[in-house]
C-alpha cells in the first residue's frame, strides 16, 4: 500500500486542476500540493477544447456586457454574483497565460487576438488558433513544473473520497501501472475531475470523461447541483463524435436532410443554420425522429454541406475541419457533405459550491466542469467553460491554500473505511459470477441516455430510462472483471468508470423528471415553456442511505431580471 | 538522463563542430588523395613518386593535416557511436579517445617523416 500525504490534494489535472495547483503553490510556497489524475496530465480532456476562451480585453467590450450575455445564455439560471466575479477575473487569467507562454493568436500589432463566438455580443473569444484548450493546458502544465512543492501523481485512478465527522480526510486510489492500493491523506481537497460526457453514446468528449468526480462526491455525501442540464452541440462528426466547430456554419455551410432540403428554414426561417445551438440541435433531431435523416451503421445523421463554398474558401477558413474530415472520414468537404448529428458536449451541473468554490463539507473545494458555481445555469455559452476552469480553478487553489494554513495537522483517516474500500476494490470486481460485461452494460446505458434523456425529454421516456438505469445498477453486480493481471488493467478501470456512470446517470434522470419546464438545454416536449414562477431554482441532489434526494435552492439574481430569450 | 543542475563542462559542442569541419576538409583531402593515387595511372603510386612527394614540404603539410583530420574525424565518430549505445562512462571514453587519437596521429606523422 502506498501512502502519500500532502496539505492540498487536487483531484484532476485538466485546466481547472492545474490552474488550482499553480495558484495554491503560489499562495504559499511551503505547502505540499499533490495533483492526482487517472491520465497523464497532458492527456486530460481539456486538451480537446477548440474555439476559444472568453475574456473582456478591449475597448468596446465591458464586464456588464459579458455578464449579460452569459446570464441570458444561461436562460437566467446562472447565479449572477458568481458571473460577475467570473467576468472580472477572466482578463487577468488571459494575461497570466500570456506571461507563461501560451501561444495566443495575435493581431498585427502584437496584441492578443479575439474572435466572435455564439451568444456573445462582442468578439471576446481569446484563441490560440483552433486549439485553445490544448495550448492553455500545455501552458499550465509547463508552468506547474516550476513549483517544487507540487507533487505529481499521474495514472492514479481515484476511487473514493473519505469524509469523517464532516471533514475531508483523504482519497483512496489505485496506481494503474502496478495495480497497487494507494491512499492520499490531506487537509484539503479540490475536485476538478471534469464532466460526464461518456454517459452518452454520441459525444464530443474524450473516452476518459466518465463522471468519476460527481459520482465519488455523491457517494461521499456531497450535494450535486443542476445535473439535468446537458448541452448538445449540433454538429458532432458521425461516427466518431469529433466536434465540427460552429464556424463551419458561420462560413455558410448548409444542413441538409435526406431529401436534400435545407430543413432549418422550417424551424428558424430567419437565422437558418445560425440559430442558437439548442435550437439547431433540436431541429436536427426533429428531422431524424420524423424519418428525414440518413441512416447508417453508426446511427442516423444529416449532412453538413460545404461543397458550395469551394475548395479555396474551405482551405482558407476551415483548415482544421478539412483536416478532420479527411483524416477521420476520408471525406474531402469540397467533394462530399459531412455527416453530423448533435452530440453531448458539456455538463452544466456539478458539485455544489459557493462563489469561493467551497463545498458544504469542510476542506472540500471544487472547480471546473466538475463543479457548479453556477455561472452556466441551464446552458453555457461557447468559450465560457475553459474560462470558468481558469477563474474558479485559480480561486479554489488560493482559497484551499488559505484554508489549510489555519489547520495544524492532517486529520486521521478512518482505517476501517480504508480497509473496506480496499476489500471492495480488490475482491468485488473479480468475483466470478454472471456473464455481464462492462462493455454491454455501458453500451445499454449510453444508448438509453442517448435515446431517452437526450435533447427531447418527456415524462414517459424519462421514467423508462430511470427503470432501465435501476435495472442496470442491479445487473452491475453480475459484471465481473476478466482481466486478473494488475499491471495497467484497463478492464478494471472501465469497470470503476461504469459504476460511476451508472450512479450519475440516476441523478441526471431524476433531476430531469422533476423539472417540469423547458429551460436552456433541458427541453421537455410535455412542458415546452420556461416557467420562471415555479422553476427558477437550482436542483440539489444528495445521496442519503443509498437514496437520492432532491431539493431546490433559489437563483441569486442581482441586476438582470429574466426576459424572453430571443436571438 | 541529462543532468538538470547542469552548467558542467563538456567537450561535445567543440567535438561536434570539429566533426563537421573536418568532414568538409576531408572532402578536399580525400578528393585530392583519391585522384592522385588512382586516377593518374600507376606512376603515381610507385615508391619513388611517393617519396618525392613526401619530401616536398607542401605535400608534407598536406598529409599531416590529412592525418590529423581523418584521425580526429574517424575516432570522434567512433566515440559518438559508442556513446549512442548508452555508455555511461563519458569521461573514461573521452580519455580513451584522446589517447588513441594522439597515438594514431603521432604514428601517422612519424610515418610521414620516416619513409
Amino acid at each position, binding site marked *: 500500500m502506498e501512502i502519500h500525504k500532502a496539505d492540498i490534494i487536487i483531484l484532476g489535472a485538466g485546466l481547472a486542476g492545474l490552474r488550482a495547483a499553480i495558484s495554491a503553490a503560489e499562495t504559499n510556497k511551503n505547502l505540499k500540493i499533490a495533483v492526482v489524475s487517472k491520465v497523464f496530465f497532458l492527456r486530460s480532456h481539456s486538451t480537446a477544447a477548440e474555439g476559444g476562451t472568453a475574456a473582456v480585453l478591449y475597448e468596446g467590450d465591458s464586464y456588464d456586457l459579458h455578464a449579460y450575455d452569459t446570464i441570458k445564455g444561461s436562460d437566467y439560471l446562472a447565479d449572477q454574483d458568481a458571473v460577475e466575479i467570473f467576468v472580472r477575473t477572466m482578463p487577468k487569467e488571459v494575461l497570466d497565460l500570456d506571461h507563461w507562454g501560451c501561444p495566443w493568436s495575435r493581431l498585427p500589432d502584437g496584441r492578443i487576438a479575439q474572435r466572435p463566438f455564439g451568444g456573445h455580443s462582442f468578439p471576446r473569444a481569446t484563441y490560440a488558433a483552433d486549439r485553445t484548450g490544448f495550448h492553455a493546458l500545455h501552458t499550465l502544465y509547463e508552468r506547474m513544473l516550476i513549483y517544487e512543492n507540487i507533487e505529481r501523481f499521474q495514472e492514479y485512478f481515484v476511487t473514493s473520497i473519505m469524509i469523517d465527522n464532516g471533514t475531508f480526510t483523504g482519497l483512496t486510489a489505485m496506481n494503474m501501472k502496478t495495480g497497487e492500493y494507494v491512499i492520499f491523506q490531506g487537509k484539503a481537497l479540490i475536485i476538478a475531475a471534469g464532466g460526464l460526457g461518456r454517459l452518452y453514446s454520441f459525444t464530443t468528449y474524450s473516452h476518459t470523461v466518465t463522471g468519476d468526480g460527481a459520482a465519488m462526491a455523491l457517494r461521499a455525501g456531497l450535494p450535486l447541483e443542476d445535473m439535468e442540464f446537458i448541452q448538445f452541440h449540433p454538429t458532432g462528426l458521425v461516427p466518431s463524435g469529433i466536434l465540427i466547430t460552429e464556424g463551419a456554419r458561420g462560413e455558410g455551410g448548409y444542413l441538409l436532410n435526406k431529401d436534400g432540403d435545407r430543413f432549418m428554414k422550417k424551424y428558424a426561417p430567419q437565422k437558418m443554420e445560425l440559430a442558437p445551438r439548442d435550437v439547431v440541435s433540436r431541429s436536427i433531431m426533429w428531422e431524424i425522429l420524423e424519418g428525414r435523416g440518413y441512416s447508417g451503421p453508426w446511427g442516423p445523421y444529416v449532412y453538413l454541406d460545404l461543397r458550395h463554398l469551394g475548395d479555396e474558401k474551405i482551405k482558407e477558413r476551415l483548415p482544421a475541419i478539412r483536416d478532420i474530415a479527411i483524416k477521420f472520414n476520408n471525406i474531402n468537404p469540397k467533394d462530399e457533405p459531412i455527416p453530423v448529428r448533435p452530440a453531448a458536449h458539456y455538463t452544466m451541473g456539478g458539485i455544489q459550491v459557493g462563489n469561493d468554490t467551497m463545498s458544504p463539507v469542510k476542506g472540500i473545494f471544487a472547480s471546473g466542469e466538475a463543479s457548479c458555481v453556477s455561472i452556466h445555469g441551464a446552458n453555457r455559452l461557447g468559450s465560457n467553460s475553459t474560462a470558468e476552469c481558469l477563474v474558479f480553478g485559480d480561486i479554489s487553489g488560493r482559497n484551499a491554500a488559505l484554508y489549510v494554513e489555519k489547520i495544524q495537522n492532517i486529520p486521521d483517516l478512518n482505517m476501517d473505511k480504508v480497509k473496506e474500500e480496499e476489500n471492495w476494490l480488490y475482491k468485488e470486481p473479480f468475483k466470478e459470477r454472471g456473464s455481464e460485461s462492462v462493455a454491454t452494460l455501458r453500451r445499454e446505458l449510453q444508448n438509453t441516455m442517448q435515446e431517452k434523456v437526450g435533447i427531447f425529454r418527456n415524462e414517459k421516456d424519462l421514467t423508462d430510462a430511470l427503470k432501465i438505469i435501476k435495472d442496470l445498477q442491479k445487473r452491475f453486480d453480475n459484471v465481473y*472483471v476478466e482481466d486478473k493481471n494488475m499491471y495497467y488493467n484497463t478492464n478494471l478501470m472501465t469497470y470503476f468508470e461504469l459504476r460511476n456512470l451508472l450512479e450519475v446517470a440516476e441523478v441526471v434522470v431524476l433531476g430531469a423528471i422533476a423539472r417540469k419546464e423547458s429551460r436552456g438545454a433541458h427541453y421537455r416536449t410535455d412542458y415546452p415553456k420556461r416557467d420562471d414562477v415555479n422553476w427558477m431554482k437550482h436542483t440539489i441532489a444528495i445521496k442519503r442511505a443509498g437514496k437520492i434526494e432532491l431539493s431546490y435552492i433559489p437563483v441569486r439574481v442581482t441586476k438582470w431580471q429574466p426576459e424572453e430569450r430571443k436571438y | 538522463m541529462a543532468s538538470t543542475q547542469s552548467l558542467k563542462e563538456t567537450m561535445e559542442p567543440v567535438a561536434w563542430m570539429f566533426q563537421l569541419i573536418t568532414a568538409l576538409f576531408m572532402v578536399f583531402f580525400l578528393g585530392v588523395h583519391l585522384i592522385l593515387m588512382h586516377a593518374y595511372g600507376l606512376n603515381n603510386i610507385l615508391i619513388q613518386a611517393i617519396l618525392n612527394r613526401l619530401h616536398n614540404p607542401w605535400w608534407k603539410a598536406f598529409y599531416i593535416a590529412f592525418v590529423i583530420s581523418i584521425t580526429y574525424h574517424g575516432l570522434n565518430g567512433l566515440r559518438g557511436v559508442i556513446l549512442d549505445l548508452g555508455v555511461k562512462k563519458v569521461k573514461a571514453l573521452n580519455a580513451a579517445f584522446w589517447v588513441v587519437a594522439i597515438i594514431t596521429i603521432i604514428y601517422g606523422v612519424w610515418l610521414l617523416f620516416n619513409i
Partner: protein
Amino acid sequence: MDKVIFKIKRGTPEEWQYVEYEVPVEKGTTILDGLYYIRDNIDHTLSFRASCRMEVCGSCAMMVNNFPRTTCSTQIENVKPDGTKNGIKVIKLEPLSGYPWIRDLVVDFDDFFKKHESVKPYIIRKETPEGQLLQSPEQLAKFKQLTLCIKCGACVAACPISNSDPLYLGPAALAAAYRFNADSRDEGKNKRLAVVSDPEGCWRCHFSAECSEACPKDVDPASAIQKLKVQAAVFEFKRIFTGRKDGEK
C-alpha cells in the same frame, strides 16, 4: 475490405506472445476503433491507452507495422498490410519501441516526461511583466509549429538513438527546448542551452530525421534540434571565451 486481422503483441516483458484478432472494417474505421472493438467484443483484457480519439491528447501512439503512429488518427484503410492470412490483411501492433514496456500496448512514459521537464519547458523571465507581452504574428510564426507537439512520444520511438541510448534526451524534449528558446517572450535561453548541451543532449542527435517522419503533428523536431545545436555551440563558445559559466555576456 470488410475485415482485417490485428496481430497484437500481448503480455508483459516476462511472458508475451502475438495474438490475432479479426476486426470488422468500414470506411473510416481507425486502428483505435478496432482496438476498442476487440476490448468490447472479443477480449476484455486487452490493455491500451487512449482518450481524445481526435489526435490531440497524445495517448494512443504505438507501433503499427514497425512504425510509430497515433492510432486514433490512423485509418485501417490507409495502412499498408504487414502481410495477409487467408486473404485477409494483417496489421501488426506493438507497444512503442524504445520505452520500458509495461504490458500489452502500454509503455512507461515517466522517463519521457522527466526528460521533457528537464529542459525547462516554460517561459523564464527575470520579472513578472505588467499587461500583455506584445508578440507579432511573425514572432509567433517562428515557434508556432513547435507548440503543436502533443507529447505522443512517437518521435522518440522512431529515433534510432533513443532506441539504443535510453539516456538520450530525445527529439520531443529537445524540440520543446527550442520552442521556448525561439519564443520572443522568453529570457531563459542560456539556462536551457546549459541543459541540452549535456553529452546526452542535442549532441547525440545525428539527424536521422526519423522523428520528423513519425510526428503526426508535423512538428519537425529534426529541424528544431539542428537549430538548437547551433545555438548551443554558440553558447558554449561564448562560455569558453568569456569564462562565464552561465554564458551571459
